[in-house]
């Protein structure tokens, strides 16, 4: 058996043999195997999610010059299980005046919006849920469901802090969706397909981060904003909103939001690596064995997740009007300009040798980034002059 070359297919064929042996029609067996595959993927993700709690706590403690969980089990590895038991046995509270059905659906939707993203993640060659040819748009559609879950949580809690938090978060998510979608189009231009599998396969020669470093950076910023993590965490804003949209949630319902956020961060680390760092590709390592390819993808996703954590625990929260101005007046125009430049350069350099194509793309990105920074610098200088200018003394109108 070539189990080590394609374990999923071998397992599926084996199960199909068993199920049809029981007298099940083949179509029913196929559907059942499909469901089992989904169950397996989700179970693996949820178990991974438990360890993400540990990773997050360990990493944040290092950034803050602490040790982090280290008492329960080796390196504190059993700590997340203790956390889960605590969350499960906590009293499950639904606040008075809350909209019960909406209140209870919101955490589920939040988790679901993250899990459905994995349907299009190519975890190894030929190993992905569905090779949607609209994978990039699918990511945005799943994000729309995440937005919906937050607004539902904020509204149904019957709490003003939750409501303000939801407002802020939705404003952020809707605005940063624009540069994110634009940046998703740049790998699409290079690969000629929106499918995540095709985008990964097309990065055999060069990772797209070398073709479009600026796009990778903008995508990362937009992803952090979509996640609602610092410096864009005004939805939670502990110092002003206590905890934001999830303030009324307790026990495992809060746990769903928390776990969903962690898995979301990891997932966007994964998408960052798929779109710009070659996904499961690593100098032919993915051809050796699919399990090795999965390991490469997880490693790259963890690296992306680590960068997201690094940003979160280093930067301060930006004020909401600054953040929206940053998005609409700087990031979105820059994203559109980059998309136009990339499309133009792609058409211009289509039939040139690859070294020229790569260096042309890279240089156009660098030039555009430099121009954008110059524009921002001159604007900020003008603003600073306006503030520093001595104000004319105004006579009080009525003494």
């Amino acid at each position, binding site marked *: 058996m070539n189990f080590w070359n394609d374990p999923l297919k071998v397992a599926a064929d084996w199960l199909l043999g068993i199920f049809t042996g029981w007298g099940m029609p083949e179509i029913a067996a196929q559907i059942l195997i499909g469901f089992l595959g989904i169950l397996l993927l989700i179970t693996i993700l949820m178990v991974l999610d438990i360890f993400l709690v540990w990773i997050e706590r360990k990493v944040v403690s290092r950034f803050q010059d602490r040790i982090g969980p280290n008492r329960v089990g080796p390196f504190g590895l059993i700590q997340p299980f203790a956390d889960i038991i605590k969350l499960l046995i906590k009293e499950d509270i639904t606040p008075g005046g809350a909209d019960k059905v909406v209140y209870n659906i919101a955490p589920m939707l939040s988790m679901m919006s993250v899990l459905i993203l994995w349907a299009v993640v190519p975890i190894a060659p030929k190993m992905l849920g569905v090779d*949607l*040819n609209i994978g990039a748009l699918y990511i945005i*559609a799943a994000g*729309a*469901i995440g*937005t919906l879950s937050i607004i539902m949580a904020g509204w149904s809690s019957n709490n003003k802090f939750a409501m303000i938090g939801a407002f802020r978060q*939705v404003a952020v998510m809707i605005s940063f*969706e624009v540069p994110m979608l634009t940046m998703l189009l740049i790998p699409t231009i290079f690969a000629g*397909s929106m499918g995540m599998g095709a985008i990964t396969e097309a990065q055999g020669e060069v990772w797209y981060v070398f073709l479009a470093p600026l796009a990778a950076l903008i995508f990362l910023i937009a992803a952090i904003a979509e996640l609602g993590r610092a410096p864009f965490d005004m939805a939670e804003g502990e110092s002003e909103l206590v905890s934001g949209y999830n303030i009324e949630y307790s026990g495992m319902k809060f746990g769903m939001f928390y776990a969903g956020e962690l898995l979301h961060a990891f997932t966007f680390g994964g998408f960052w690596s798929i779109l710009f760092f070659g996904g499961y590709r690593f100098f032919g390592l993915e051809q050796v064995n699919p399990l090795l390819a999965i390991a490469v993808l997880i490693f790259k996703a963890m690296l992306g997740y680590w960068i997201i954590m690094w940003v979160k625990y280093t930067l301060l929260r930006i004020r909401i009007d600054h953040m929206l101005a940053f998005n609409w007046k700087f990031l979105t125009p820059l994203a559109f300009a980059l998309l136009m430049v990339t499309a133009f350069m792609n058409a211009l350099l289509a039939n040139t040798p690859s070294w020229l194509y790569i260096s042309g793309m890279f240089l156009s990105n660098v030039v555009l980034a430099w121009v954008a920074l110059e524009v921002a610098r001159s604007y900020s200088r003008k603003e600073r002059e306006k503030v520093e200018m001595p104000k004319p003394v105004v006579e009080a109108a009525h003494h």
Partner: protein
Amino acid sequence: MTGEQITFLVVAFATLGSALMVVTTRNLIHAALWLIATLFSVAVIFALLSASFLAVVQVVVYIGAIAILFIFAVMLTRKDMRDQSPQLNKNWWVGALLAALTFGGLYALLQGWSGLSRTVADIPSGFDAVAELGTELTSFTGYVLPFEVASVLLVAALVGAVYVAFNPRSGDIRK
């Protein structure tokens, strides 16, 4: 009945049921949430028809943008906008009669239509509907002109909205 027909019937009833809830529920936020359920079911119908691009665009545009803006607008208004007046007036039977007649007429008309009994042609393998759509929208033999005209119309609407909201004297958006 094939599996596809069963799926279609379930989704169709979900669409109609949630659409009915949109107009009958008294809580505005609930109406918006039911509207989202309706729009999502329509996306599922698109997916059943192998129109994956339309299905995802339906979710992105209608749920991700329009429905969310509905909820935003409703949430910014008074907390409880429940209308306590009766939902039907004394002419309800005229409306019901018209609806029943329209349904009966359509049913009678479609009985003689050959399209109802036709089965869907199989999509050839390797047929990329999104690529076809993209080529059609950008090729000069296709729909590049209507596509661009629609874009210009949308940009004009956007600029117009900003102009209407912008107050040149204070240099600020009108409250």
